[in-house]
């Protein structure tokens, strides 16, 4: 530690150069922080939290676009370990124009809130109103705000899939309550959620009656999720409606994976960023040591041993990269809320940022190898002689 002032002084020997190098390191770690969090978000749907570990999703084995039958409900319910089952359908809705996407889902009000019992806060009175109003809907607080709706409003949604008996794609609902997601993660994932009655939906549509898009099960023991999934699928093996059941998390992950190999793309970019930066910083360090050869020779003459000299050069590099990483990662952390807005529906976690410091140390070591080797190998007499 006593050499810190010396390392600090040499670091700022050429101020402009150090500042510019520092800034490019900041930029690299800013990018690192941003891209790693995005990568983390895509590989950990639902965030690092445990919510959803006790939920399974059952879809049609052959295609997510093919329906299942509501009649399958009874069999799934009878599987020991499954505590609640609910069913949902795609509605493909928007409000007024296609860009106003609304995640409207027909639900069964009893079983839905058994499966999702701890996701939302809903006022008792509003819940009561929902249960008793055929055309009633519960809407996320964010959606209310977005379209300036309020409880009591009648709102029309356009479904891109389901026609009513009269051939119309426009469905009208009455807002009876507000869904308040319990966590900010849920709030960002479920920003456009709009829940209405399956009963009204099934009666109203003019085809596909009695079908559902998927079932969701709540299970007693998350450790049993694989075994229960297999049990459910076995019920329908070789039937016309074979199923594929998986934990809700795996389902979300598989969906994100379909977007493409995002991890590979992000890491390829980071590879390019760090290679470029390695080159740049390495160059600066080399230059700085080259300029200080006479000084280093003087230190050696005074009796500084090789390990100390090595420590000084590596220390300088660690300090430079450390400061840069700290600032850069700090910036990327500050950008998290902005990123969240951009990537609606996926969760970001600051956990993605932490590995950055490890990388910074590794990076500092790589960058200082050549200059440190040069400083250690230095021949005192030649070095002093080269001064004039």
């Amino acid at each position, binding site marked *: 530690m006593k050499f810190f002032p010396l390392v600090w002084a040499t670091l700022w020997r050429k101020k402009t150069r150090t500042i510019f*190098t520092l800034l*490019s390191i900041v930029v690299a770690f800013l990018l690192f922080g941003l891209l790693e969090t995005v990568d983390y978000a895509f590989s950990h749907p639902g965030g690092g939290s445990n919510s959803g570990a006790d939920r399974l999703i059952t879809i049609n084995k052959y*295609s997510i676009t093919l329906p299942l039958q509501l009649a399958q409900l009874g069999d799934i319910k009878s599987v020991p370990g499954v505590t609640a089952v609910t069913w949902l359908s795609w509605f493909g809705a928007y409000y007024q124009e296609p860009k106003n996407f609304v995640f409207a889902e027909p639900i069964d009000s009893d079983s839905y809130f058994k499966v999702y019992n701890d996701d939302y806060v809903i006022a008792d009175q509003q819940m009561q109103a929902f249960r008793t109003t055929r055309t009633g809907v519960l809407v996320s607080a964010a959606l209310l705000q977005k379209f300036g709706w309020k409880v009591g409003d009648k709102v029309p949604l356009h479904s891109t899939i389901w026609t009513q008996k009269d051939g119309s794609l426009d469905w009208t609902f009455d807002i009876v309550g507000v869904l308040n997601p319990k966590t900010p993660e849920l709030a960002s994932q479920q920003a456009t959620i709009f829940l209405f009655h399956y009963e009204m939906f099934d009666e109203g549509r003019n*085809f596909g009656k009695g079908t559902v898009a998927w079932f969701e099960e709540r299970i007693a023991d998350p450790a049993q999720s694989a075994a229960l999934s297999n049990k459910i699928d076995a019920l329908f093996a070789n039937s016309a409606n074979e199923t594929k059941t998986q934990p809700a998390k795996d389902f979300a992950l598989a969906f994100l994976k379909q977007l493409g190999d995002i991890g590979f793309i992000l890491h390829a970019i980071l590879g*390019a960023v760090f290679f*470029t930066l390695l080159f740049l910083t390495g160059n600066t360090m080399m230059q700085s040591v080259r300029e200080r050869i006479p000084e280093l020779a003087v230190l050696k003459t005074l009796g500084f041993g090789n390990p100390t000299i090595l420590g000084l050069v590596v220390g300088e590099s660690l300090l430079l990269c450390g400061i840069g990483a700290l600032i850069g990662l700090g910036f990327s952390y500050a950008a998290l809320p902005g990123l969240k807005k951009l990537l609606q529906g996926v969760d970001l976690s600051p956990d993605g940022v932490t590995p950055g410091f490890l990388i910074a140390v590794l990076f500092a070591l790589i960058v200082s190898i050549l200059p440190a080797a040069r400083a250690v190998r230095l021949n005192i007499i030649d070095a002093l002689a080269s001064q004039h």
Partner: protein
Amino acid sequence: MFKQLTAVTAMNLQTLPQRWGTSSVIVIGIAGVVAVLVSLLAMGVGFQHTLADSGRADRVIILRGGSDVELNSNLTRADIDVIASAPGLAKDALGKPALSNELVTVANVPKIDTGTDANVTLRGVGAKLLTVRPEIQFVSGRMFRPGVRELIAGAGAAKQFRGLTTGSILRLRNADWTVTGVFTSNGDVHESELLADVDTVTSAIERTAGYSSAIGLLASPDSFDAFKDALTTDPRLKVDVQREPDYYAAQSKDLSKTLKVVGTTVAAIMAIGAMFGALNSMYSAVATRSLEIATLRAIGFGGVPIVISVLLEALLLSLLGGTLGAALAWVFFNGHSVSTLGGAFAQVVFKLTVTRRLIVTGIIWACIIGLLGGLFPAVRAARIPVAEALRAA
């Protein structure tokens, strides 16, 4: 002054090899930025090309009114009959209208690289398929036969998803389907799909509601308006009629835009880092040449030629870097095929396309970074105090 400029610049460039270490920072830094920029943009361009190529101005897609994609649409057999009799459709050799009634569904097929299930479009197509889509060419195998469980696979799908080569068996919904051939279709979106006889697909998925869409080939692109009017004013129908290019352009818009924004943002942040690198190396280039510059100033060279010469050096190095970066992107990624979830809930396979325009964009970025990085050092060079610099030597 021009003479001075050429003299100083020539001198600069002659000493460049001696300063190769620091100069290479500019080249490599900028190459990195341009390579990332061009590769990311190439993804957006490739995706757009794939969807844009799916369209012919004389081909129309008819969906149920209000459904924005085929997957959500629904037409009955009666609808199809009405559409087939509308004026403006091309006729085949037998005088039958060039219309294919199609059913779009999605099948789970594992991806080759990850082994995880992906949504692949299985498209049931009508008997007039080859009249409507003459661009379909077989790479291997033969056409499927109607009435039996046979399908043909697009070349893009065959490359990305498992078990889609000619002769292999694909298990879909309790039945084995034989892949009888692999086709190309001008690199368009259908190369990501599986095609089979529409009635066979309908019975396989037990769909009762009808078809997804009807694809028609017009007698000429000009007959679009008449055709559209005939359908939209027919009281028996409630359909949307679009030219194919318009339909696919709408589907590619979002992703292309996202890729463009992401690519530009990442590259812009990186560019700032590279600019600091360029500043560093140009400052050190000026510093090592301060004696030389002071001498020039002493014997009467003006400040402007010196500023310009430093800028030219920075520009030359960044041009080199830009070219290198674009070349790297081209060598590694041009034609590289990837797939993503397209607008219609199914995988679209596309190739990264490094176009000439992207290369030019990359090189322009390189020059801007180089100029910004060279500007301050250039001004410093012109302001070197002559007497001090000479004395310091």
